[in-house]
């Protein structure tokens, strides 16, 4: 496999790590979802890079675009959830979301 691929994967892994670090430690719901966005950037970077080094960039483009559409749908759902949660809790703290346990 071309060495260039690993360069892109290296950066993609950095993005995913950053996102997961944020998910693990931060408390603000919106911040958490920004972290999810960061992770998805890492993934779409990996898709396009793979397509580029495999010389099937057209296929990779369609995948990336489809992925972006999925992302939009997810963002809409998640943000609707966040707004609803804010209405209920008057707060965006993830720690308040621990009523269900045991």
């Amino acid at each position: 496999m071309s060495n260039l691929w690993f360069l892109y994967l290296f950066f993609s892994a950095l993005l995913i790590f950053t996102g997961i670090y944020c998910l693990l430690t931060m408390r603000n719901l919106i911040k958490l979802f920004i972290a999810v966005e960061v992770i998805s950037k890492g993934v779409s970077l990996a898709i396009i890079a793979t397509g580029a080094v495999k010389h099937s960039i057209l296929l990779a483009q369609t995948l990336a675009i489809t992925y972006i559409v999925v992302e939009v749908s997810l963002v809409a759902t998640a943000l609707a959830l966040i707004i609803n949660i804010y209405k209920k809790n008057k707060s965006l703290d993830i720690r308040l979301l621990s009523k269900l346990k045991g």
Partner: protein
Amino acid sequence: MIIQILLLSGLVIFSILAILLKDLLKAALSLAVASLFLGIIFFRLDAPYAGVFEISVVAGLITVLFALTVALTRKDSEVKEARLTRLAFPLFFVIFLIIDGLVMKSLLQQVPALPAGPETGSFGEVLWKSRTFDLVAQLGVILAGVLAVLALFRKKEEDKDE
């Protein structure tokens, strides 16, 4: 090559900023900037359509959605983050950077791959002809998203259990 690495570094830096910035609006904006960098990387990788989508939809639409949400939840929504989070991040990041680098370096030439033939046709043909199913699924995802938003913002007075 250098430019590409700079762009990639920019992407990572702005993503980190999006996470570390205290102000949510600024965070959303730096996420948009990161998307911009990603879009440019896409262009440079010969993926113009994906680049356009990334810039218009992710940097545009999704940022707007974030901004809207931030605006809607602005009032006294300060969430205190643990201070250690931000302080410890560089440490962890550097550790992971080293691990990541080492892993990727060790993988060089280690992973075999099948040779790929050159692609034929245009973007449109690939999208419409060979990935038609993705379009169906996209419709499904969009439908699901729309219905989800409808369900989550439906009028409350009809709910009997409230």
